[in-house]
């Protein structure tokens, strides 16, 4: 545990620059700048199999290799907007292991030929931004940032930028718009950021946790990194565990660890010895998995989680126990998504509004099956029809709970579902 990302739990004071350097901190960056071609570094990260930890799980090295070399300057933008309900991992990394994260930013910048990197933090991370600013100033003082680094002709500056409370800015193109001083609304893609990013220039956008892996890949090598996790999902992952568990918190474990091990061995099981009912593996954006033995024994990696009907996403595991009714739960998630919809795409803007009202009606015992069917109908019509994933995300808990936790809705409506209505529900989902 804590082998790569949460090393501050093992190494006292690694958050101080001197201590970080005693543990070979910035040796990898120096070696890269003085002895490696940028492309070599990209190839190394590609070979490590590191996949983006923000949610999509795309190959990090591959993304870096997409940077357009015919247009300049290049930028690196770090997504530190961490806003998914259930996710609180990036905050711990930046607070307690800031220099490893910052070295990761520097390595990425060198690999893609960027001389400026911005760290976009959600506005609530106001104290954290000040902490990072102080860390960046220390690096400048020690010649780890600035001009002609280590006697080379490479120069780099890192700046923090605070958002101001908008979940949508975790979506990379909305984040770029926001950083440009505009409303945080997603762009039509393609073009993708590696060819058209910040200020229309080639830009690599990576998540905090993704970049915090890179210094140790450079320092200890690709084989060492691949010694953790699975063939297709190498490395460790910080799992944010929350909800009805005894010991919520961040746990760094190899990808492929089972839900059961995380929830029962590390998380101490369910609060007050109650029974587990459902798991949301990707925060509020997640489908609800029925927490049976099959699900609990499923490895948490990018390939396996879909086999039980959800995505790993940012690995924010929200545990739901038997006392929770799904009508309440989706009312909560819809409240969130309606509030956070940026308003650009009609299906999401209007759909989240109506879904929220329908879940409210169901939750307050004012609904019939027609309302539940209408809710699922709206959800099915939002899915796949928006510029970014927020619209889809808002439907996941709604559709999966109606499909997989039918009993909760029967109890709320006070009647069993008729056969024609059941057929209608099924048809909506298959469309």
């Amino acid at each position: 545990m804590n082998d790569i990302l949460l090393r501050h739990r093992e190494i006292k004071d690694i958050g101080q620059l001197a201590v970080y350097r005693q543990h070979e901190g910035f040796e990898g960056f120096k070696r890269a700048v003085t002895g490696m071609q940028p492309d070599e570094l990209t190839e190394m990260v590609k070979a490590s199999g590191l996949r983006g930890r923000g949610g999509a799980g795309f190959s990090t090295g591959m993304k870096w290799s997409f940077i357009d070399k015919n247009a300049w300057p290049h930028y690196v933008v770090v997504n530190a907007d961490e806003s998914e309900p259930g996710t609180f991992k990036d905050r711990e990394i930046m607070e307690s292991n800031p220099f490893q994260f910052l070295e990761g930013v520097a390595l990425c910048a060198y690999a893609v030929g960027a001389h400026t990197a911005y760290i976009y933090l959600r506005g609530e991370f106001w104290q954290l931004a000040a902490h990072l600013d102080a860390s960046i100033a220390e690096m400048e003082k020690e010649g780890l940032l600035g001009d002609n680094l280590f006697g080379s002709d490479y120069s780099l500056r890192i700046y923090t930028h605070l958002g101001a409370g908008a979940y949508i800015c975790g979506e990379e193109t909305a984040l770029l718009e926001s950083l440009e001083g505009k409303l945080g609304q997603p762009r039509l893609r393609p073009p993708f950021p590696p060819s058209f990013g910040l200020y229309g220039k080639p830009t690599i956008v990576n998540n905090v946790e993704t970049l915090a892996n890179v210094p140790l890949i450079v320092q200890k090598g690709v084989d060492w990194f691949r010694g953790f996790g699975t063939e297709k999902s190498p490395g460790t992952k910080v799992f944010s565990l929350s909800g009805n568990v005894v010991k919520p918190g961040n746990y760094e474990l190899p990808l492929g660890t089972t839900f059961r091990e995380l929830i029962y061995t590390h998380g101490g099981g369910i609060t007050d010895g109650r029974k587990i009912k459902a798991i949301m593996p990707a925060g509020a954006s997640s489908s609800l998995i029925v927490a049976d033995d099959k699900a609990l024994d499923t490895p948490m990696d990018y390939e396996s989680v879909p086999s039980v009907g959800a995505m790993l996403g940012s690995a924010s595991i929200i545990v739901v126990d038997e006392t929770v009714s799904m009508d309440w739960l989706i009312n909560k998630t819809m409240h969130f998504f309606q509030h956070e919809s940026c308003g650009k795409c009609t299906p999401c803007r209007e759909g989240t509004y109506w879904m929220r009202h329908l879940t409210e009606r169901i939750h307050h015992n004012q609904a019939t099956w027609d309302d539940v069917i209408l809710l699922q109908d709206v959800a099915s019509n939002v899915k796949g029809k928006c510029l970014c994933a927020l619209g889809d995300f808002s439907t996941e808990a709604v559709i999966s709970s109606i499909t997989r936790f039918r009993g909760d809705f029967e109890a709320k409506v006070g009647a069993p579902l008729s056969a024609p209505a059941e057929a209608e529900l099924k048809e909506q989902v298959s469309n």
Partner: protein
Amino acid sequence: MNPLRERYGQEIDDILAKYPQEQKRSAVMPLLYVAQREYGYVTREHLGQIGEILAIAPTEVASIVGFYTLYHDTPGGKYRLQICNDLPCALRGADKFLEGVCDHLGVKPGETSEDGVVTVEAVMCLAACDKAPMFQVQSAEGISYHENQTVQSTIALVDGWRKKEETK
């Protein structure tokens, strides 16, 4: 002379230096934070002053204020107590906690206490789900996190603010 620029010249120059010269608009969010520090909300005059510094229309600045939740265009309490009651926090009792705090202060979510010291707001996820009930406090001093809270610890904090305001 632009009053914001006059009062916070060095700070504003430092902010502008972070972005390419022809991309000054990127500074709109940090400048709004500077302006909001003055009275706890952004005034109409601020919109014009920021627009002038960045060479954009005041309505464009206003659109940013409207879009992002941490900017306010109306006065509120000196301290905005922003309680997260999103799903993970609610599973750990955040709704009850919010209710308890509101009852104690005699306000509803969104309202300001009679003495003008505190506004209680229910907000979206703050990335502290494992330490609920929790809230952040937004004030002239910035934003601070308060985790693993109880109604009692929260009221004690509010009482501290009240004393501080009385002695001002």
